[in-house]
C-alpha cells in the first residue's frame, strides 16, 4: 500500500502526470510497474470503462471472470487484484473513496444500445467506439475488447439474479487508485451513455493522475 491511498482526497502533490479526460472521450497510457493511476470522478455519477493489456504481450489482458473467481465475489473493491487471462495479477485497487465497482456489465456499444433502447440509439456515441479508436493506437482491434471494468458504476445483483444498472453512487471528487503489478496499457472510455443512470443521464469529464512508487 502506498501513502497515496491515505493522502487527502483531491491532492495531486507529487503526481508525474495529470490530465482531464473530456466527457465521452477515450484515453490510454502505459502504466509502469509500481506506478499508481488515480481516476477522479470530477463531477460525480460518471461511469469510467477501463481495460488493461500487458504492455509486453497484449494478448495477455484483463479478465473479469478470472478476477471474480480469484476473489470469490462479484464486485470490485479496495484490495481487489485485477487478474489477467493468464492468471497473473496485473494491478490492484489500492485506494477507493467510492466503493463497489462493476465488472460484469461490459461496455455500451452502438449495437447493444439498439437492442436495449431502440434502433434510434444506434447512432449515438458509445464506449466500444471509444475503445476501438484508442486500441488502434496500440495495434489492437475489436477482437481485443473483453469484458471491462466499470469504475463508479453501480450494478447490484440480487440473489434471484436480477441485474440492474442503478444510479451512480459516486460524489464529485470520488476517486479510485490502481497500482500496476506489471507494465500495462491502461485504456479508458469516459462513458457517453445517456440512456441509463450510470452517468446520471449526463456524461461529464473525469481526471487522471499518475504517481511513481514511493521511494524505499
Amino acid at each position, binding site marked *: 500500500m502506498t501513502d497515496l491511498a491515505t493522502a487527502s482526497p483531491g491532492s495531486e502533490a507529487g503526481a508525474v502526470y495529470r490530465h482531464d479526460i473530456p466527457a465521452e472521450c477515450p484515453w490510454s497510457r502505459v502504466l509502469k510497474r509500481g506506478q499508481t493511476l488515480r481516476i477522479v470522478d470530477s463531477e460525480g455519477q460518471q461511469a469510467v470503462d477501463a481495460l488493461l493489456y500487458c504492455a509486453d504481450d497484449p*494478448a*495477455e489482458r484483463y*479478465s*473479469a*471472470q*478470472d478476477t*471474480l*473467481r*480469484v476473489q*470469490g*465475489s*462479484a*464486485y470490485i473493491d479496495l484490495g481487489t487484484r485485477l487478474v489477467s*487471462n493468464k*492468471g497473473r495479477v496485473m494491478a490492484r485497487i489500492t485506494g477507493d473513496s467510492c466503493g*463497489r465497482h462493476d465488472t*460484469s*456489465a*461490459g*461496455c455500451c*456499444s452502438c*449495437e*447493444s444500445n*439498439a*437492442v*436495449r*433502447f*431502440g*434502433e434510434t440509439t444506434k447512432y449515438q456515441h458509445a464506449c466500444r467506439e471509444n475503445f476501438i479508436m484508442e486500441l488502434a493506437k496500440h495495434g489492437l*482491434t*475489436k*477482437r*481485443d*475488447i*473483453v*469484458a471491462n471494468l466499470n469504475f463508479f458504476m453501480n450494478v447490484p*445483483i*440480487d*440473489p*434471484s*439474479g*436480477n*441485474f*440492474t*444498472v442503478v444510479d451512480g453512487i459516486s460524489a464529485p471528487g470520488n476517486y479510485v487508485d490502481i497500482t500496476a503489478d506489471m507494465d500495462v496499457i491502461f485504456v479508458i472510455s469516459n462513458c457517453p451513455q*445517456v*440512456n*441509463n*443512470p450510470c452517468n*446520471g*443521464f*449526463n456524461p461529464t469529464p473525469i481526471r487522471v493522475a499518475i504517481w511513481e512508487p514511493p521511494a524505499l
Partner: protein
Amino acid sequence: MISAEMKREISEANRRRYEQLRAAGQEATPKALPDATALDAKPIAPEAVISRERVPADWYATVRLRRGEALRIIDDVGMSSVSMIGWRAEETSERINCADTVKVQWSAAISKGRVVLSDMGRVFVSIVEDTSGAHDLMVGGSTRASTLAAFGVALRNTHDNFLAAAAKIGLGLRDIPPCVTFFAPVSVDAKGAFHWNANRKRPGDFVDLRAEMDVVVVLSNCAHPLNPVRPPVSGPVTLIRHRAPPAAPDDACRTISPEIVRAYEFTDRLYA
C-alpha cells in the same frame, strides 16, 4: 449549443424511458418465462438427429451449427459442468458476449426462454429447452491456476481446452471471450460472495441451444472452479446436434421482451 434547461429535459426523458424498460424487464419478463423442461420431456425424434458425440470428463468438443440447428447438451451423471464459448462462423470477430447477455435481459440467471447474445446486438443461440436453470456467466471456467489452487496440481482445464479448440480453427488467445457454463449453480449473496448450490444438479439435466446464426461453439467438460468436491469428480457429457423447428413469430424466446424482439430482428437481417 443546447441550453442547460433543454439538456435537463432530455435527461429526464431518458430517465423515464429507462424506468419503464426496467419495470418491463424485471416485472413482466419473469412472469412470462416458461417453466423448466421436465427431465423426461422432449425426446429428440431419431430422424431429427444429425450427429451425436460423447465428451469424456476434462475434454472438449468443437461443434458447428447452422442457423436453425440445435445442440442438446446432457449432463449424463449429474456431475459435470459445461463451459461454452463461440463465434459466428462467417466472421469470428463476432462472438458470444456474457455482459450484454445479462445486461440486455436484466438478469444474470439464464434459463429456458432466454438467449445468449453476440457482441453485435444479435441472438447467438436461444435456450429453447432447459431442465436445470442453474448456469453461470460470472465466474467462468477452470484454468491452470484454479486447478493448481484447488487440487495442488495443475490439471486439464477449460482455459487450455478453449485455447486448443481455438487453435484448430486458426484462432488464439485474443479470440477467447468470457464463457457461459451450463449446469453450474452459482449464486451471489447480498455481500456479493459467490455460492455453489449442489442440490440444483441432477443426472440427465439438459439444455437445447438453438443456433440463430451459423456458429462454431466450443464445449469444455471440466469441473467448475467453484465445485467444492475433492478430489474432482466429473463424468461424460453427451452432445446431440439436431434439427429444431424454426423460431416462429410466436416463439417463446423470440417474444420474451422488447429487447429480445429487436435482437431477433437484427439477426434475421443477416439472412434476409
